[in-house]
């Protein structure tokens, strides 16, 4: 399966990005890594050009909340119905509870939301989700 990944917004956490890339490859995914400082439109555009199955966005500085609000609009623009949208990392600025954060990102249009969840646990859950869906 093809995965487009990268760090959204003004966020330069390159080590986390690299670890996600390596972990995805180790699990057999074909990875298109857009790197750090990536705009939301670029994730969508990369998925269109590569016909990707999954968009996995990471955010470490909590800025994703502002950068991902237009996701529903962009999803509709290209009719990306079958693409799985995943976001993970530190998804809020300051303290925030899972029960507040997760519904918020789901309302943006994400299928899976991992706030302060260990990388491998998150990827296990992604594979579980893909398994159930197929």
């Amino acid at each position: 399966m093809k995965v487009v990944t990268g760090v959204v917004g003004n966020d330069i956490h390159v080590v986390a990005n690299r670890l996600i890339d390596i972990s995805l490859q180790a699990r057999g995914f074909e990875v298109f890594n857009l790197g750090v400082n990536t705009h939301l439109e670029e994730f969508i555009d990369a998925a269109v050009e590569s016909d990707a199955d999954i968009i996995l966005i990471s955010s470490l500085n909590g800025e994703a909340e502002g950068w991902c609000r237009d996701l529903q609009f962009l999803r509709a623009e290209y009719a990306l119905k079958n693409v799985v949208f995943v976001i993970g990392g530190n998804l809020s600025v300051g303290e925030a509870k899972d029960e507040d954060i997760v519904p918020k990102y789901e309302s943006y249009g994400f299928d899976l939301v991992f706030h302060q969840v260990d990388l491998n646990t998150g990827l296990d859950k992604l594979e579980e989700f893909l398994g159930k869906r197929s």
Partner: protein
Amino acid sequence: MSKLLIDVGSTYFKISSDDGVEQQFRDFSKTIFDDLTSKFGDTINKYNKESVHICSSANGGLSTLIIGLTNSFSLKYAKNIAFNSGINIIDTVLYHHIDKSAVPGDLLDVVIVVGGIDSVGGIYDDKLFKYLEKLSYSNIVYVGSQKDAQYLSKNIESLVVLENIITDKLKMKEEALKEYLTNLYQQDIVGKEDIKHLYELTSNQIYSTPYIVNQSLPYVDARHEVINPFIVVDIGGATTDIHYSRDLSRENMLSESEYDRLVFKKLGVYKSKESLIFAAKNNEFVYELLNYLNVTENILEQTDEKALRVLMQLSIFLVLCKVSTHNSMYITLNLHLLKSIVLTGGITKVLSFEEVESIVQFFYKKILHTTAIPTILLDSNYDIWTLGMNAIEDKRIENVN
């Protein structure tokens, strides 16, 4: 062996011989050949055909329409490659909006269709063919996913299929399209009847002038007091070209060439003077700029030397605006990083260093909000052009050996 270098511009000729560099305005009532030989016949006759090297920018430039899948990849990459190959972009179409997109009425020199990495298929359908039926174009080239190449070739007459410009890792691969477009541009220039005639004077290939300037750039910082990253602004009679180091571009595209080029077809000070004035009047800072230069807008209607100087200063300001963050329609350069601005072309024979410096100061203060400006160099003796012509000739000899 000494060489004679000739540049045929849209407004004037210049030649570089053993006696130095000379330039003269063109007489548009004559053909290029007659005009050139009447003005420089004595000099030309001193050289044999093997020693004469000609480049031309007269009437150059191609129009294109790019049809692509996304703004961030296919359209962005194709636009970048086209700009660097002498193309004047007229329009782009996002494929999923093709039903609602306007159809350009003028004849297009080339249509570029692009989208998808090689493993992706089934991107295009009847919508593309219906749109193309309404278009009028001379050439069409496909540089997208190779999986769709056969299907498109069957349905589009005279389609040229080249290597995909998007790699399997979503990076840009420019060589094949760049070579194709550069050759089209070259054919466009040398194919013009007027230029073909010039082969009576030379046995060497006639090149396009922007190509020559671009070839000189890797050597400019070694030969001049120029610090990298720099830009070269070539303000001519019909067009204004800006050549820039890729370090200044925020586009973050990987390619072999270190220097890119943008051409503004309507910012020349003679043949496209009217469109330059139009562009100036539509710029929000222009009245403040005219005030800064101690003139009123009436100067734009005048034809004396003072008016020409102001027009040239305006064109410097406008071209910097067009590549700054102030204007997102073109490629944005990080002008805060810029260390040197080199000006070449006819402008260096008219404007003084102080006049150029004052306009650059105005631009940096007004648009970039800083008083620190890059160093400025006027290429008054057309060294960049002669450097480029000699670099091409050296490369040719190297290839022969």
